[in-house]
């Protein structure tokens, strides 16, 4: 006991002492520090040990990454984990029922598409997931936590893990593209300005707009604005990204760019994506799982192939763009003959 404490003190003293003092002390202990051959050998040993250490470190890193990947893949294969779970959701605006008990799951790490005719409230669904609207009945789970019953503080915390790409892009018109992308970083992190600049440059590079960093949103084309908004949406590296009609009103080239970006970002950043759209062709190429909504409920779901093979008339009408079918061409109205006779309603 006494011995160990005294050696401890020596050690502490050694670390505290300056280099020259250490030397004299070691000399007094008769250690062969000055001897030339020993110094050389020690030097070689240091290099060899350093190499060994870095090799070992690299090996460990590789092993760790490998094991993580195995774990992640194993988990994905074993139990299809869902990032967003919508359970028996009912929502109405005024007297108009928009959803009547829909159930829908969004698997982690995949692209889930939600399709349906215009005006059935696809955007509303995204707003419900984002907690901007409150459902009448049912529950929405994000990462196993209920968005509906969350406190305001928890909701704002959860929203940091999700982001949404609005149809209009919703860039802040009084800021440059750079400042727009930097905005969430400045609001939610305490990173230094040069670090933020680097992150912004990387995000803009990912969407191909690094050269447009100093432009104002009004100087961007529609497709560029959407890409800039996408860079802003991924600025905080979210878990979930929701695309609201990403392909609407885009020319074929920017549509192709967006399709590529959605797929690549999803895979590269290990995101989970929800794409709300009515562009059938594009969605069938990128989505891992598809839900088709119509008439207040889910009318079809499955992989792209399952959807194509669906025998539901409604699904087929939607996929093939038939003018008339289960979704009628005419807005509900009295018969034409009757309206000629003066009957309006």
């Amino acid at each position, binding site marked *: 006991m006494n011995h160990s404490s005294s050696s401890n003190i020596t050690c502490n003293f050694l670390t505290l002492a300056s280099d020259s003092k250490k030397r004299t002390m070691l000399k007094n202990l008769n250690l062969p520090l000055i001897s030339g051959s020993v110094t050389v050998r020690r030097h070689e040993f240091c290099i060899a040990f350093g190499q060994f250490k870095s090799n070992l470190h690299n090996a460990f890193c590789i092993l760790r990454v490998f094991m993580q990947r195995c774990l992640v893949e194993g988990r994905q294969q074993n139990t299809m984990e869902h990032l967003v779970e919508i359970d028996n959701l009912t929502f109405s605006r005024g007297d108009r029922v928009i959803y009547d008990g829909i159930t829908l799951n969004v698997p982690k790490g995949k692209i889930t598409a939600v399709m349906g005719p215009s005006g059935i409230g696809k955007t509303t669904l995204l707003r419900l997931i984002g907690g901007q609207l409150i459902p009448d009945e049912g529950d929405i789970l994000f990462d196993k936590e209920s968005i509906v019953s969350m406190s305001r503080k928890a909701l704002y915390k959860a929203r940091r893990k999700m982001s949404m790409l609005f149809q209009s892009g919703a860039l802040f018109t009084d800021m440059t593209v750079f400042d727009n992308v930097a905005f969430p970083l400045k*609001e939610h992190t305490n990173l230094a300005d040069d670090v933020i600049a680097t992150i912004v440059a990387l995000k803009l590079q990912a969407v191909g707009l690094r050269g447009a960093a100093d432009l104002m949103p009004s100087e961007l084309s529609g497709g560029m604005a959407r890409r800039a908004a996408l860079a802003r949406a991924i600025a905080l590296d979210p878990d979930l990204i929701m695309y609201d009609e990403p392909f609407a009103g885009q020319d074929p080239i920017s549509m192709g760019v967006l399709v590529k970006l959605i797929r690549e970002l999803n895979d590269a950043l290990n995101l989970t994506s929800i794409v709300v759209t009515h562009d059938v062709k594009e969605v069938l190429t990128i989505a891992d799982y598809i839900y088709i909504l119509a008439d207040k409920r889910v009318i079809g779901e499955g992989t792209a192939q399952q959807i194509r093979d669906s025998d539901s008339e409604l699904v087929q009408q939607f996929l093939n763009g038939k003018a008339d079918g289960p979704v009628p061409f005419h807005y509900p109205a009295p018969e034409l003959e009757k309206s000629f006779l003066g009957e309006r309603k």
Partner: protein
Amino acid sequence: MRFLQSLGASTISKLTAIGRATLMLFGALVAVPRVKNIPLVIQQLYVVGVQSLLIIMVSGLFIGMVMALQGYTILVDYGAEGSLGPMVALSLLRELGPVVTALLFAGRAGSALTAEIGLMKATEQLSSLEMMAVDPLRRIVAPRFWAGMLAMPMLAVIFSAIGILGGHLVGVDWLGVDSGSYWSIMQSTVDWNQDVINGVIKSVVFALVVTWIAIFKGYDSIPTSEGISKATTETVVYSSLAVLGLDFVLTALMFGIE
């Protein structure tokens, strides 16, 4: 029966609107002021305050000049043109300064606030802020509110000061009232607490009302071009009426019963 029904419906909708407005104001004010947001307030102070300076100064000058001209023609009949100074100063400090500033502010800055916030809503910028976990009440509404509250009393004081100088220009320089009596009778008549401070209090109250109406109308607007144009008009109309109505109430409280 239908009349009663519509009366009830409109009363309920008005009351819920007042409730929503109160909630919005509460949400914006309850936010702990963060150091990060001070530059935003300063930026808005520039937009609503500094950019309104020109219209306020020009109006103040002309109103002061007109007051002196009108006052002189009346006072000179009684040989009391020496009282021109206090007449101009008191009417500006007590009434015209706060009231006209508030009316001009509603037209110049209030309508701009409504249109800006309404358009932010229409272009989904407010929604996207919410989705970025940034509270639009704190980020957008609160800085604009505080900027309005700070700017308007200052503008009112500037308005009165320029008006008094305008009165001096017309009364003393052009119409030949004695400069010494213009200033000295003004100094002995105008009371700091009774006149100056009461004027500033009035203008703080007007600032609250006008800015509140402006940001609420923008925040609550229907996000279409029609909705925003309606909201902008309502901002100017409602805040003008509120200012004039409140002015009577405040005057009665401050000067009515001696």
